[in-house]
């Protein structure tokens, strides 16, 4: 593959504590190496530019059945919103882009790793087919567990070891990456058109509370020592006054510490927290409780969060939180798709318009930014838009702009129809903080990689790690006075090197290196009871045979397996 050196850039690598030092980064055979070992490298001149590791996205809905429903049922998302072809394949769609556009756009922004936020296990072959067709970026996918009948039964009876054995089996069956939990219990209740509105609301029939599902899955996760932690979408998400439920959920992590060999410190990752930091008791008096939430998060090291920043676009919401999407349909009366998945989960999809003319939208916008701006530790607070729920991932550069520039925030706020009411209901106007490039590197690379337990490979520039380097045309010693230049620089990276190959240049994709599927293979002792339970449920209740449910090797594409052995 040869050698490459990125010379004279301002390097930001939080994993090594490098804060904008002018230095070179070397790559040989796809891996970062000490620059003095290079013999005759190709050179990239990064003088006057910012150099970071390739970006890592901890939570985005990019592949799989509900994403595809969003694509299928929204032809209007393509109309006048798709760019003309300029790579190998056409690029269609805006809020829910085609697989090809997804890969290309992430590469243009300097990202190399994207964690698919929710994989219904029954649909894993679909997820892997889409992963195959998503170019360049490495993908992992998290199967959902929080409403899975096996999990509910085991946890109800405190059978952590059995649940762990089942979890290991399902991760292998679906070639999954981590334990995702969406509206624990509530989505199962949705099977009957019901919901679990707080963590003590018992799941119909299964007679277990969401609280117990959450703690049970934390225990399972740490019992197995998985790379990533339990990844939680809280109960009662998206409703006014839900911050108390969120705090209740966060408190469930108290007393747990991370046990793993992957450098991860948290036991709970709470995702798109913007959607669960609302005060008030109706859409009329909704306000921001981001400060309350962040005070708690700041004080508790065993929790990480991501933002779920509203970008004020017309987008497509999609989540395994079936009852929430049904609720949302009632709010905006747009079209509603839903799929309940047997024994496992559900999903809903509803288009949504976040408008600067709508008070709730602009309050949501402020809540998201407040979360990051109140954070004391940006290694635990990550940039996401819960793509495409609060906005498409292609808006990350805009989110970065808002975070780095008070002036940019002010300019956006000037467009709000209900500016006074927004300022009244939030504290965004009182915050002057502007994040630094180092902090952005923490939020978009080092932090997510560490939280995902993959910081030995992704998210940093230490020798031995993957040769993934993003170069942005931003000079930290001479930052542009116009914040729009920041957005521009992060939208179209000057260079993206992936696995040592120059993949994008000047914001355009120039080549398509092979992409990978990352999954976690857990070895657990033989467990006859779990094997029997699997046999029984598939015999009687699933509509697919167990042999056909488990992903065939031929449908797994370019795998990179992370092994965990619990039998030692």
């Amino acid at each position: 593959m040869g050698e490459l050196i990125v010379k004279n850039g301002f390097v930001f690598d939080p994993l090594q504590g490098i804060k904008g030092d002018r230095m070179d980064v070397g790559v040989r055979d796809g891996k970062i190496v000490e620059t003095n070992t290079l013999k005759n490298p190709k050179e990239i001149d990064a003088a006057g530019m910012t150099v970071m590791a390739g970006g890592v996205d901890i939570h985005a809905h990019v592949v799989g059945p509900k994403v595809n429903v969003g694509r299928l049922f929204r032809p209007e998302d393509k109309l006048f919103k798709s760019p003309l072809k300029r790579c190998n394949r056409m690029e269609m769609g805006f809020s829910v882009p085609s697989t090809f556009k997804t890969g290309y756009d992430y590469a243009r922004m300097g990202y190399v790793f994207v964690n698919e936020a929710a994989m219904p296990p029954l649909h894993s072959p679909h997820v892997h087919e889409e992963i195959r067709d998503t170019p360049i970026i490495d993908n992992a996918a998290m199967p959902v567990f929080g409403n899975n009948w096996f999990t509910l039964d085991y946890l109800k009876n405190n059978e952590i070891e059995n649940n762990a054995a089942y979890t290991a089996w399902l991760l292998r069956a679906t070639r999954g990456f981590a334990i995702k939990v969406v509206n624990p219990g509530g989505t199962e209740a949705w099977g009957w058109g019901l919901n679990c509105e707080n963590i003590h609301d018992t799941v119909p029939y299964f007679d277990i509370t969401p609280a117990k599902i959450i703690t049970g899955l934390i225990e399972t996760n740490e019992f197995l020592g998985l790379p990533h932690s339990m990844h939680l979408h809280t109960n009662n998400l998206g409703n006014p006054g839900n911050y108390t439920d969120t705090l209740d959920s966060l408190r469930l992590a108290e007393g747990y510490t991370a046990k793993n060999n992957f450098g991860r410190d948290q036991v709970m990752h709470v995702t798109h927290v913007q959607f669960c930091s609302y005060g008030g008791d109706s859409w009329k008096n909704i306000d921001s409780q981001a400060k309350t939430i962040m005070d708690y998060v700041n004080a508790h090291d065993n929790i990480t969060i991501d933002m779920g920043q509203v970008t004020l676009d017309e987008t497509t919401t999609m989540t395994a939180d079936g009852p929430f999407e049904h609720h949302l349909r009632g709010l905006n009366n747009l079209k509603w798709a839903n799929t309940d998945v047997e024994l496992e989960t559900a999903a809903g999809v509803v288009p949504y318009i976040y408008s600067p003319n709508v008070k709730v939208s602009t309050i949501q916008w402020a809540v998201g930014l407040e979360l990051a701006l109140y954070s004391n530790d940006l290694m635990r607070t990550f940039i996401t838009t819960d793509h495409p729920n609060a906005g498409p991932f292609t808006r990350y550069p805009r989110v970065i702009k808002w975070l780095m520039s008070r002036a940019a925030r002010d300019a956006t706020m000037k467009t709000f129809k209900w500016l006074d009411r927004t300022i009244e209901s939030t504290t965004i106007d009182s915050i002057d903080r502007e994040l630094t490039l180092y902090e952005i590197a923490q939020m978009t690379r080092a932090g997510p990689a560490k939280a995902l337990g993959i910081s030995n490979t992704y998210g940093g520039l230490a020798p031995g790690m993957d040769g993934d380097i993003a170069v942005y045309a931003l000079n930290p010693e001479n930052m542009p006075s116009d914040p729009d230049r920041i957005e521009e620089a992060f939208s179209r990276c000057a260079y993206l090197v992936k696995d040592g190959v120059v993949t994008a240049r000047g914001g355009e994709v120039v080549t398509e290196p092979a992409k990978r599927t990352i999954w976690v293979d857990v070895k657990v002792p033989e467990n006859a009871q779990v094997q029997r339970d699997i046999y029984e449920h598939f015999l009687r209740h699933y509509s697919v045979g167990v042999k056909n449910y488990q992903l065939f090797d031929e449908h797994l594409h370019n795998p990179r397996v992370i092994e965990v052995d619990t039998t030692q």
Partner: protein
Amino acid sequence: MAKKIENVGCPFCGVCCDDLVVTVSDDGKKILEVENACIIGSTVFHRAMEDRHALPRLRQPDGTFKEISYDEAIDYTAKVLHNAKKPLIYGFGSTNCEGMAAAAKVAEKAGAVLDNCASICHGSSFLAIFDNGYPSCTLGETKNRADVIVYWGANPSHAHPRHMSRYSIFPRGFFTGKGHKGRKIIVIDPRHTDTAQVADIHLQVQQGHDYDLFDAFRTVLRGHDIPDVVAGVKKEQIVEAVDIMKKARFGTIFYGMGLCHSDGRNHNVDIAISLTRDLNDFTKWTIMAMRGHYNITGPGAVWSWQYGFPYCLDLTKRDIAHMNPGETSSVDLAMRDEVDAFINIGTDAAAHFPIEPVKHLRKHPWIAIDPHPNMATEISDLHIPVGIVGVEVPGIVYRMDNVPIQYRKVIDPPEGVISDEELFERIHLRLCELEAEDAVNVPAKAAPEGVRAGE
């Protein structure tokens, strides 16, 4: 010693039974026995080896076919696509998703129109889904939870023989331990079909008046009065049916061609979706299209993730995909004689299209890709035989509820016969070569200037 292969998926209908047991001969060439399949499914396997060709056949000036090599057939196809202004690639009901993805690559390279059987089948469902959404579920949900089942304009007894026993009426699921006894079955059909035989309530709707009846259902559901007779059905019967649906714990409406191909078409499906949505204000209801072929759901899925459109994809603009059924749908294109080359794969357009479009299509090169001879292959200029997906070729197919099922191979294809996927990959390679040859002879066209969305 014969070999038993278990967990085999059935390459017939959208029910996608995956519990077949197929016994094959020792040499892996003959199918001896098929267990668990319905009569149609079992016939697909038993007749797999009948009337097969091992080589492509090219039409000669005297009207007869001559066998040619795969390389020659691929070269012929690539040249037809390369020279055509608006080729149409249509079919795909009976192949795997890998083949569909490869075909899309070819269509994009060639600047073709890409369409599937939904165009003449559940396409109207897509139109309704675009407008109104799709509150649905997987078939296992219906089996485990449903206590009320509605079949509307569908006759699974004949079209989807194991649908009722695997998923809807008869099975005992987790919360439905009584099976058939615990379920109410409502069948709405102008005919007294064999499905209507097992119904608790059969509403004999006047043909073409489904929309009226749905409207009456919604009206009653919302607590309003209706006329004494709507769409040929008595008010009492409607009220009774709505009451059952409203009191259900979990219900599923399965609808078929009776809705999407009678008067109203997409509007019938649209109001069926609205009814389902309304019912969800009271209890839990879902709706599902009874998709026909075993993988007709596949192209809708594959092309949605590749281009964002499920069918009627016009890729002839080469830099952007465009979908507008009526303008870019196969039959309409052919009716207007806009297509100047036709590839028919995994379905039989000659048998299914009206005669006028077939006549128009027949004026231009017609290439049929199918394991067996059929009407399309027999009137074609070139017939390229391929392996049968689910019998000789493995791969992923999508069941009618969008659940991916991994199909297996049970026997070898006739010697030398390749898969759809390999065929399209090779056509793609040949197209790239032809383009490269062109580039040497003709100065390259300027690359289109990209425009970012939102700019």
